[in-house]
């Protein structure tokens, strides 16, 4: 495994298998009464969050704490960042305190990569702009693999706001690595420019028609409509988006009854996903959250527990 986790490109198929195996053990630890392992005793992990987050930050925090690391949260609000400190200065300041791991979320694509060049600490990308969110992809794939047994030759539909989605970018890379066929469904305005050339390279299909894709899918990943990244008009109204691309009750009925439904959260209920779908038996949304802690424990363990941490 490489020193940092900045992109899904940093992990090989063998790495993914090792991460999943460890995550499965961590999952068992979550069910114990004493949820504590000593593996990262004496190590310090800083969660550096320049964007809002509930589940990613809290699951990294829980993951670190269950492995006995000291975890410190720094968020942009209420820190020197709001006084105008640059990213580099913030990182150097935190690193100078003797930190072993930096978990970073930032609105700028490539922020984690940049940070990794400024510090000796292990850097984990917890979402950088519209680029990648590798731990989310790992937990999605892990959840699907647990539900379906394998991802080999499975057909996964990724639906929604593809342009703004780092979750999509990491997922498409990882799912291809694990042998799944991916169809990306989005309204034309939310399909990234130049996606056709890219889809040929990365080996996924694109479609504008959700109704034709759904009945054939073995799993569906709904993406959140990211209102905070939408300055222009990408679709006329929320209602229109739901009619064309929402996982409504009617569409749920066309889906295979055992096909898992994933959503990275937070869900806009009634917009991209109907309550019926979010709460259906085949919904994997809460599995994803508990897998999130297990996967992040696994990532922290593999990157921080061993000697030198880099191999």
């Amino acid at each position, binding site marked *: 495994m490489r020193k940092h986790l900045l992109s899904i490109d940093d992990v090989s198929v063998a790495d993914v298998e090792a991460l999943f195996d460890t995550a499965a053990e961590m999952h*068992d630890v979550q069910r114990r009464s004493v949820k504590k392992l000593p593996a990262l005793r004496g190590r310090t992990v800083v969660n550096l969050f320049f964007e809002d987050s509930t589940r990613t930050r809290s699951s990294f925090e829980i993951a670190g704490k269950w492995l006995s690391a000291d975890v410190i949260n720094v968020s942009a609000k209420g820190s020197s960042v709001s006084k105008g400190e640059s990213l580099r200065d913030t990182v150097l300041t935190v690193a100078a305190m003797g930190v072993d791991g930096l978990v970073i979320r930032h609105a700028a694509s490539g922020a984690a990569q940049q940070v990794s060049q400024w510090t000796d600490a292990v850097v984990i990308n917890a979402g950088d702009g519209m680029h990648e969110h590798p731990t989310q992809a790992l937990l999605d794939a892990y959840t699907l693999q647990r539900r379906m047994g394998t991802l080999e030759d499975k057909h996964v539909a990724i639906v929604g706001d593809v342009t703004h989605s780092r979750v999509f970018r990491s997922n498409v890379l990882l799912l291809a690595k694990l042998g799944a066929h991916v169809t990306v469904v989005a309204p034309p305005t939310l399909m990234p420019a130049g996606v056709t050339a890219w889809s040929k390279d990365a080996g996924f299909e694109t479609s504008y028609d959700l109704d034709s894709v759904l009945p054939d899918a073995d799993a569906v990943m709904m993406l959140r409509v990211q209102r905070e990244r939408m300055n222009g008009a990408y679709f006329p109204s929320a209602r229109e988006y739901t009619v064309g691309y929402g996982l409504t009750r009617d569409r749920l009925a066309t889906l295979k009854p055992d096909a898992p439904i994933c959503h990275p959260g937070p869900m806009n209920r009634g917009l991209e996903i109907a309550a019926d779908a979010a709460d259906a038996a085949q919904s994997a949304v809460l599995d994803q959250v508990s897998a999130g802690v297990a996967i992040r424990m696994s990532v922290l363990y*593999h990157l*921080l*527990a061993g000697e030198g941490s880099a191999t």
Partner: protein
Amino acid sequence: MAPAQSASAPTAPEGATPEGRTVLDARDISRALTRISHEILERNKGLQHLVLLGIPTRGVHLAQRVADRIAKVEGAQVPLGTLDITMYRDDLRKHPARGPHHTVMPPGGVDGKVVVLVDDVLFSGRTVRAALDAMNDLGRPATVRLAVLVDRGHRELPIRADHVGKNLPSARTERVMVRLEESDGYDEVRIAPMEGLEA
């Protein structure tokens, strides 16, 4: 003493590490495990509160074999679990991170039980220390005992075994290799000079 080469018992297949000498063959191992099983029962005066915990990987196979023998004698199954110690090792920092093994809680848990830890080789005692720490996070047994197939000496911690298959005087520069049917295809304990690697 000439190297013990018993012609009748099944030994290592062709092509396996030829250096060193066989200390226990399949029959010796079988006899040792039978004796350990009886000792455990005798010491505990039966099955009451008894729990076996194997330490991965070969300790798990040995614990299973001991459990099978106990079942034959007592006519009842002894609760069996496995205890992974990877994350509790004191040398975690000295190697690249390795994936942990499976921990299986025995049916009924370990609280208030007589837990017998089972491992293949007792050497420095550090594995057992880690196992005791790991057990702390699972519950509070009434008693913890230790059963090992081979005790090769060179303890670095105040730890001893309660049930020993074979006391094997060895030099620090030697390797003791336990091979079991379940993981290696054949049963054998072999001692060999170290080829520059740390055990």
